[in-house]
């Protein structure tokens, strides 16, 4: 078995620092396996959030070699093992301990978005009729596992700390899933502009790059919402046409 060094963010009181751990690694291992081995052999007090080990629960989000990724989906053979592998918590959220961040802000954002409000049923039996092609557009957004890697990498939250003004890519995607749904009648465009700060997004596409579910967050969710906001609030021709409808 080969040995590798992992440079893991450890906290002590209110301070944090990187600490190196050398451990044995073998073929097929992922970063989460190595962290668990270090926990078992050297650092039983190392705090780390995890659950499914299959890239579906979104619990083990961290920054591996500086890039937001799921620890359970990052294979060691994808990383340069000659150097220490850095593992640190998501930086856009307050750290709790070691690799665990406090992501509860996300759960407070979600209820602020107007809920799904379907139109009156199409059929007497209380059911609706939808075209598959219309549902296909929003189906992509439902793949989200709420790992919050997109929130973590977004520089509006990460570097500028605008958590009060901007809801982040995860919840813009959630808003898009509702707003673009063929049955939905709720109006979220005003809130997207004023309360959710969609204008803060400057389309760097970092959220799309880190999404483990390969959701095209920027192209298919954020930009379409931006365009709807432009229609509603910035484009005088669209406003004029709306007056005649």
């Amino acid at each position, binding site marked *: 078995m080969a040995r590798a060094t992992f440079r893991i963010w450890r*906290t002590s*009181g*209110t*301070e*944090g620092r990187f600490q190196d751990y050398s451990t044995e690694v073998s073929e097929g291992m992922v970063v989460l396996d190595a962290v668990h081995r270090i926990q078992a052999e050297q650092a039983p007090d190392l705090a780390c959030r995890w659950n499914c080990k299959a890239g579906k629960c979104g619990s083990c989000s961290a*920054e591996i*070699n*500086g*890039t*937001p990724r799921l620890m359970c989906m990052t294979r060691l053979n994808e990383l*340069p093992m000659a*150097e220490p592998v*850095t593992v*640190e918590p998501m*930086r856009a959220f*307050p*750290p*709790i*301990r070691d690799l665990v961040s*406090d992501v509860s802000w996300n759960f407070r954002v979600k209820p602020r978005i107007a809920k799904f409000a379907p139109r009156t049923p199409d059929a007497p039996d209380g059911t609706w009729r*939808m*075209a598959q*092609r*219309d549902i296909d557009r929003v189906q992509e957004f439902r793949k989200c596992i709420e790992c919050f890697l997109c929130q973590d*990498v977004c*520089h*509006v939250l*990460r*570097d*500028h700390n*605008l958590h009060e*003004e901007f809801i982040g890519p995860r919840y813009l995607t959630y808003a898009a899933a509702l*707003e*673009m*749904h*063929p049955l*939905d009648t709720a109006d979220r465009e005003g809130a997207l502009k004023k309360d959710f*700060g969609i*204008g*803060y*997004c*400057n*389309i*760097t*596409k*970092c959220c799309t*790059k*880190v999404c483990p579910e390969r959701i095209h967050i*920027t*192209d298919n969710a954020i*930009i*379409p919402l931006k*365009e*709807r906001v*432009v*229609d509603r609030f*910035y*484009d005088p021709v669209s406003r004029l046409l709306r007056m005649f409808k």
Partner: protein
Amino acid sequence: MTTVPVRVVPRGFGQTTRRDAWWAVPAVVFTILSAFVVYATWAAFEGQHYTYGPYLSPFYSPEVFGDSPHAWFGSKPSFVPAWLPFSPALLILPFPGLFRVTCYYYRGAYYKAFWADPPSCAVGEPRKGYRGEHSFPLVLQNIHRYFLFIALGFLLVLAHDVWKAMWFINPVTGQTSFGIGVGTIVLAINVVLLGLYALGCHTLRHVIGGKCDELKSDTRATAYHCVSCLNARHMVWAWCSLVSVAFADIYVRLCATGVWTDWRLL
């Protein structure tokens, strides 16, 4: 559960634990865009060698006022003051230029490459304040849709230029005959690439169907599907068309100055 808030020191400009060459893509974007802007500005002010036979440089098309046979309304109008720099391209280039400047893809690219906002994903920024496109001046990027419609009109003009580039005048007899030169191919490829770029625009995708929750007609659904297909490669078409439009100008310019010979294929 009680939690002890742990302090994470904000990262400074360029600080990151990323191991890859995160600076490479912004550096390439910076270099290519800077080179293009410098060349296009020089070519626009130069005002000469922009036609060769039936070819017209895309930087100068449509030639509204000018001295070449391609001009729509003759030479420079008399009301334009003599001290004002004039070139047919100066009337044209601002429109496709602003279409690219306000393009969603280029915005993301040049915010990183020129403003370091951020320099790259998960890399520290040089400034603390941030307004994004939420307020002036960057809220003006929302004007993109108007430049899209102008750009679509330009596509038709450039396609007509390709048609005209198939008709060569015999210098001896003065007769016009059909033909295809390398320049014709260059101009045609340029129009195709510009078309793939403009027709994959995010705003066009919105206008053609994205704004509707239900794509009720098959025609609209097909159009939306086609634009979405092009949109998925918008970055590729953005760069290819940028290079092709500059190369088409260089080709016409070098043929006009006698540096290159335009080979007739037909």
